[in-house]
């Protein structure tokens, strides 16, 4: 352990002396400062609530736990008598339930009660439908950067008259409360049913605490004093997700990895310089041990920088938006793992060539190659759905390539998925999960670790068998 710490400290000295760490910290600070300049203003309550409350027609069965979504036709939701108290909203929720809408068999069923019954049900039949090509081409949310699959939807539940009739007032209140969680991510809601004015209409008095600050509420986006996105009805969670996934994990992470590859590509060749290596390996430390400790030193260095950057961004987003979900922090180990893969390749090249320039350029080429395979595979997956499988041969080649090569881009997709789980509302997540096939978690991690181990094993073997 003492040896490891000594080599770690030595790597740190090298990084500090070469201004590597200062460059990284400045970039980290600039990223955090940039994100801190972004503000989020909740939109007008009356307008947005009136529009968005209609979405309550869609619900998640199994009390919001199912992976499917469903809807019962004939139910309309209206918000009236809206009062705003800061971010809290008080209003009357009027649910109009038209039994003659066409749902169910005679005798007619109250659709609202049928929806509540369906929400309570666990078992759902599902079917697969093709996504419209226009939706695929146009891209929606992060689908333009993901593997698309056929849309799987839950069929309307088969509710009997007795089941619908058995729904209690408490179950209806519970359903409405859960809809606030599903559609807005707002869990602190008081719902009280008013006396029923007429048949087929339900009126509830609702007090939603911090509804306007919830992740499902539309927000305008500002940069310093300037409004840059207004009147787009973008939910806060979606905006935060785009910042976290696109700006930080995507662009920021890419730049961080690129700069890290460039700056750390000098570490191993410097260590292997004639006259430097001899001094160290004549000490009681194994050649392979020294190489691997140097590698780990680089990783810890990047872990620190990633933790500062991502942690800082998470903190300022939390301060500015009130969203403190920690799942965005998964970006830290994801960036470290991506770097671990690239640095293991860089280490192998450095050991084989002893050239920092070769290690740097080949690692950048390797990164670009992996990205390109992932990108082409994504395009082919989209094309496959649209063109109905006319690209089988080319697609198979890239499927195989993507499966056997390190899953650099798939790792990015997994990170995006976990990040979105911390930012999206449950309804938005269900839509995403229905159309985006996430890569296998164990497949991605397994093959990535396998490559890291293989690169390091080759580097260690070459280093240990090489004289001097």
């Amino acid at each position: 352990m003492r040896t490891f710490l000594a080599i770690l400290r030595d790597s740190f000295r090298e990084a500090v002396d070469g201004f590597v760490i200062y460059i990284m910290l400045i970039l980290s600070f600039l990223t955090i400062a940039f994100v801190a300049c972004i503000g989020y203003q909740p939109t007008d309550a009356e307008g947005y609530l009136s529009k968005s409350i209609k979405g309550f027609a869609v619900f998640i069965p199994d009390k919001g736990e199912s992976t499917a979504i469903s809807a019962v036709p004939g139910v309309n939701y209206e918000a009236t008598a809206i009062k705003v108290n800061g971010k809290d909203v008080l209003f009357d929720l009027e649910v109009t339930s038209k039994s003659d809408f066409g749902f169910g068999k005679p005798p007619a069923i109250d659709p609202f009660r049928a929806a509540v019954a369906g929400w309570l049900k666990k078992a759902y039949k599902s079917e697969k439908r093709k996504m419209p090509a226009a939706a695929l081409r146009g891209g929606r949310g992060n689908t333009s950067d993901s593997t698309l699959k056929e849309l799987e939807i839950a069929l309307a539940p088969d509710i009997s008259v007795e089941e619908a009739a058995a729904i209690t007032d408490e179950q209806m209140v519970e359903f409405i409360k859960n809809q606030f969680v599903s559609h807005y991510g707002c869990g602190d809601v008081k719902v009280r049913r008013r006396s029923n004015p007429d048949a087929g209409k339900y009126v509830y008095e609702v007090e939603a605490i911090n509804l306007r600050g919830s992740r499902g509420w539309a927000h305008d986006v500002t940069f310093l004093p300037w409004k840059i996105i207004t009147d787009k009805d973008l939910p806060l969670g979606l905006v935060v997700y785009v910042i976290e996934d696109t700006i930080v994990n995507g662009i920021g992470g890419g730049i961080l990895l690129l700069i890290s590859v460039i700056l750390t590509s000098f570490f191993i060749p410097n260590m292997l310089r004639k006259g430097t290596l001899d001094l160290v390996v004549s000490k009681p430390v194994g050649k392979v041990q020294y190489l691997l400790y140097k590698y780990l030193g680089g990783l810890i260095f990047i872990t620190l920088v990633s933790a500062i950057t991502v942690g800082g961004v998470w903190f300022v987003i939390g301060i500015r938006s009130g969203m403190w979900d920690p799942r965005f922090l998964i970006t830290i180990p994801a960036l470290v793992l991506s770097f671990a893969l690239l640095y293991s390749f860089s280490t192998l090249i450095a050991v084989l060539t002893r050239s920092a320039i070769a290690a740097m350029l080949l690692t950048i080429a390797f990164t670009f190659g992996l990205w390109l395979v992932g990108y082409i595979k994504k395009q082919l997956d989209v094309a496959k759905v649209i063109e109905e499988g006319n690209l089988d041969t080319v697609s198979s080649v890239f499927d195989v390539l993507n499966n056997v090569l390190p899953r650099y881009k798939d790792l990015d997709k997994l990170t995006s998925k976990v990040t979105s789980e911390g930012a999206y509302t449950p309804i938005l997540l269900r839509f995403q999960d229905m159309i985006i096939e996430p890569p296998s978690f164990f497949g991605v991690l397994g093959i990535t670790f396998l490559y890291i181990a293989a690169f390091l094993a080759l580097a260690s073997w070459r280093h240990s068998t090489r004289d001097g």
Partner: protein
Amino acid sequence: MAVIDVSNLQKDYGSLQALKSVTLQVDSGQIYGLLGQNGAGKSTMIKILLGIVRLTSGEANLLGFPAGSIEVRKRVGYLPEDHAFPGYHTGESLLHFYGQLYGMNRTDRVKRIAESLDIVGLSKRGTSKIKTYSKGMKQRLGIAQSFFHDPEVIFLDEPTDGVDPVGRKEIRELLATLKEEGRTIFVNSHLLQEIELMCDRVAIMHKGEIVRTGTVAELTKTVERFSITLAPGADFPVAEVKALGFKVEPDDEETHVELKPGQSIDTVLDLLSSKNLRLRNVRESKQTLEDIFMDLVEQAERGSTKRGVRVARAVSARRDD
């Protein structure tokens, strides 16, 4: 027991034989010099002993353990030729780093580092970055790092390289002190005078072979040679002395007489006395190590290294006796 014990050591780099069946023993408490031209194989041999380079065949043991074992490296110090210390360290921080690799605790490190830097004259620059050091200062730091952890054996590859004459003298004195403390010091050098001045025993290496070993005195006494000066006006009887079987070389006022094995200078002196030639001066002129080395190199270049090897074996056998 020999501290360094090398037997039939061979190292090939592809078709190039860097070491050709080298056999060498170094006893404890000596300063042992390995002399040779650049590329003779001196550094390769040290690197094999330290496990930096793998041997092709033969045996190499250090302190009774196979060369290169981790256990042995704790007890050994090493200054490589062309060392490149990381410029981002200060003298002190570098020694702390190396001390940690040796497993030294902080208290010992602090004490030993201060002492060692003081010994090599760097105590005032210990906290300066190494990249600000002169070549001589780096060399002195290199020597400090080779002994600060209290090793039993110290390998120094060209230790006086880049050091001024005063610094060289100090290094020689330091090595003498380290020897007095019971350490064994193995010095590689192509600087003949340095080896002659500091080493107890010497091995001469040429093109991967040990061509001669022995003490400096032994090596420089292999040929007895006398310089004789007669009183003014007297002529040296060159022909008569040659007739007695001696090799004679007149040189201005003095005449050099070289003895073959079994011959005595007394025979020549008796002849001069019988001819009433008055002597002014008689001195035994030792061959320098440089003479020996140059002779051996010339012989080797002429392809006559066999004689050198035979001589080396004879010297080695005599030492073993």
